[in-house]
């Protein structure tokens, strides 16, 4: 089997790049993988497991893509997935939805090409007049991303025309199934656990760590405020690694709260340095509120290091095993943070056990081998769905034409006849829904 895999690749600063890299060895046992990217550079070691091809959207080798067995498109809520999504629309394949809420991705996609009118039409198509109005305001920055994420996440646009969908959270599965009629699979996000677990000294000062793209929903400000108000704050240290949503604001806040001796904003650091930092940290703070409907690769990374973490009980995180994480409720953020920090100081071993439980959980449920297997299964189903997917597109086309003459009082009879004719092309003796 030949797979075309469209994904960000290391050294791109996204968990999806790491996810791809860590999955390749397992995937390679089932298929020959070609990685397609528009990045100018990628980690050389990827080529131990796959062929890497650079694509240029202006001249895609469609023939070559069509001759592979399946294309897989990785979509997340970030503008750099725009190119991948556009290709997915042209040559349908399996969409791997890393985030279910994609308002930022699609605004960027349409903005890039000045297609505001089309963007609004899409919003209207999926969400009606209210959706269109919200999209208009979101476009001109009058509405925050959080609002759109909650109400108009644009998920259907990501899966429109796909042959299959892979998701990592129950919420995303629901969202996908609502707008996609083909095969879908809910698979636990994979993470390769290193052989030897980290060894930690459980003594103060206890190192708190946050890492990744520290976006507005990571609650950094709230954590800083809570730390400033924690009586035994001197027994804690906080290291923040990764790009900050608003670095200036964070630094200013540090100064204002007098936290500079305790908190370091490291910025982006190489993977090895981050691993070392995680290995010596005691408690990770991995809050997400509101969630983008994503499963957290970084959470798996924390557990693989045996690190206990504080998470928000929302979305994917809400279903995490209670012995492997500690919850910080959005309505009681400061309270819960203090409670857990107290507990850490009082009974650090409990947190050590929490980290261990997390590590065992990853080993049991998040193996790349299981994931690769699930991908291959879904690909086979998606291949069988191809003719149906083409039939759905055809039905859409017929519907567009018929809209010109079917008025509001038209009986469903006319639509059903056309649908039956379309269905007759792929399914004998089955009337379409």
């Amino acid at each position, binding site marked *: 089997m030949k797979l075309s895999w469209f994904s960000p690749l290391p050294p791109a600063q996204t968990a999806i790049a790491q996810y791809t890299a860590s999955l390749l060895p397992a995937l390679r046992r089932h298929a020959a993988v070609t990685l397609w990217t528009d990045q100018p550079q990628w980690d050389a070691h990827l080529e131990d497991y796959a062929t890497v091809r650079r694509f240029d959207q202006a001249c895609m080798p469609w023939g070559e893509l069509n001759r592979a067995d399946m294309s897989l498109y990785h979509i997340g809520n970030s503008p750099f997935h725009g190119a991948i999504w556009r290709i997915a629309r042209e040559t349908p394949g399996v969409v791997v939805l890393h985030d279910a809420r994609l308002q930022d991705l699609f605004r960027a996609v349409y903005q890039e090409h000045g297609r505001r009118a089309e963007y609004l039409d899409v919003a209207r198509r999926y969400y009606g007049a209210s959706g269109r109005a919200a999209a208009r305001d979101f476009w001109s920055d009058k509405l925050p991303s959080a609002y759109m994420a909650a109400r108009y996440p644009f998920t259907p646009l990501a899966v429109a025309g796909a042959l299959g969908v892979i998701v990592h959270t129950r919420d995303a599965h629901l969202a996908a199934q609502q707008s996609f009629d083909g095969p879908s699979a809910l698979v636990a996000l994979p993470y390769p656990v290193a052989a030897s677990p980290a060894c930690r000294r459980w003594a103060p000062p206890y190192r708190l760590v946050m890492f990744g793209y520290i976006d507005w929903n990571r609650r950094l400000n709230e954590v800083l405020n809570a730390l400033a108000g924690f009586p035994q704050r001197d027994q804690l240290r906080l290291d923040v690694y990764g790009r900050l949503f608003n670095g200036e604001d964070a630094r200013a806040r540090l100064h204002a709260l007098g936290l500079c001796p305790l908190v370091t904003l490291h910025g982006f650091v190489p993977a090895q340095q981050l691993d070392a930092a995680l290995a010596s940290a005691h408690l990770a703070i991995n809050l997400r509120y509101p969630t983008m409907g994503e499963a957290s690769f970084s959470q798996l990374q924390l557990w693989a290091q045996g690190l206990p973490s504080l998470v928000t009980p929302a979305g994917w995180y809400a279903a995490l095993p209670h012995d492997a994480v500690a919850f910080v409720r959005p309505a009681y953020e400061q309270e819960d943070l203090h409670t857990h920090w107290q507990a850490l100081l009082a009974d650090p071993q409990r947190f050590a056990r929490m980290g261990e439980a997390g590590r065992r959980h990853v080993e049991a449920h998040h193996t790349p081998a299981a994931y690769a297997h699930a991908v291959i299964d879904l690909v086979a189903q998606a291949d069988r769905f191809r003719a149906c997917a083409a039939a759905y597109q055809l039905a859409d*086309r*017929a519907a567009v*034409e018929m809209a*010109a*003459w079917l008025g509001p009082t*038209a009986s469903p*009879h006319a639509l059903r006849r*056309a649908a039956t004719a379309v269905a007759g092309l792929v399914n004998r003796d089955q009337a379409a829904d």
Partner: protein
Amino acid sequence: MRIVIATVQVPFVRGGAEALAEGLRDALRAAGHTADIVALPFKWYPPECILDQMLAWRLLDVTESFGTPTDLLIGLRFPAYLVPHPRKVLWLLHQHRTAYEWWDHPFADLSHYPNGLEVRDAIRRADGAFIPQAQAVFTISATVGRRLKEYCGIDSAVLHPPPAHAARFYHAAPEDYLFFPSRLSRPKRQELVLQALAQTRQPVRVRFAGSADEPAHAGALQRLASKLHVQDRVDWLGSIGDDDKIHQYAHALAVVFPPADEDFGYVALEAMLAAKPVITCTDSGGPLEVVEHGKTGLVIEPTPAAFAHAMDTLWEDRARGAAWGAAGRARIERLNITWDNVVRTLAGCS
């Protein structure tokens, strides 16, 4: 230019519409264009079939042929003129009449079906949506144009079609028969002529040429002729070839052509080309645009009595008939109803 003519095909039926499409194609080719006819079979009953075929036409792509664009699409009939094309001009023979002037009418068809209203509305909506997308809209007669304006609010210009083989029509000494060439169908009203024959004072003879759309209709007309005791004064020529038809025109005393609200009707033009007077009716539609009462023929009430009187008039007064025929010939020459004119008008829209 590369030009596609879009029309419909009713299997095993051939009439004026088919002749028109072919005439247009041949004229375009003669003028140096590359032309071809594109047609899908059309069955208008039961009504849901109409919707199916509207969709079928909308799904076709005639914008290019092997990489070379089609420069112009000429749409002639419903639903063929719905086919998408960026450079489309319509030369309407007629819209789908049972959705318009024949909705609530003796020739109604659509309205007899339970879903007829729904289909009628769909047809009207489609016409309203797609006809205006054309670069230009022509109709074969003012009658058709008037209906288009009345029902759809769409403006159009008249472009009369010349009959096929116009140059071959000729005039010869009239013999004792009136000629009525047309498909045998209710809208053409062969029945009216038969009923009129029963009331003539003179031993008027009529030759009917043409085959029946519906096989049963020919038999029905013959039975009517018997019932009226006029069968001895009637000849049923059936379907005849062009040569024969031209010959029949040439030697006729006059031409009778009383259809009900005809779109246009080549017959009147052909009669004028053969310099023969025409008897038509006040509600015949198209022919009224070219036949002048008392100058090139008679336009009378569509009643058997009036029609009988008209036939008697021409049977008796041969000189007057000949004069009217000559006047008709002169008139058609003045009207510039030629393929040259059609080609220039339509091709000039690209």
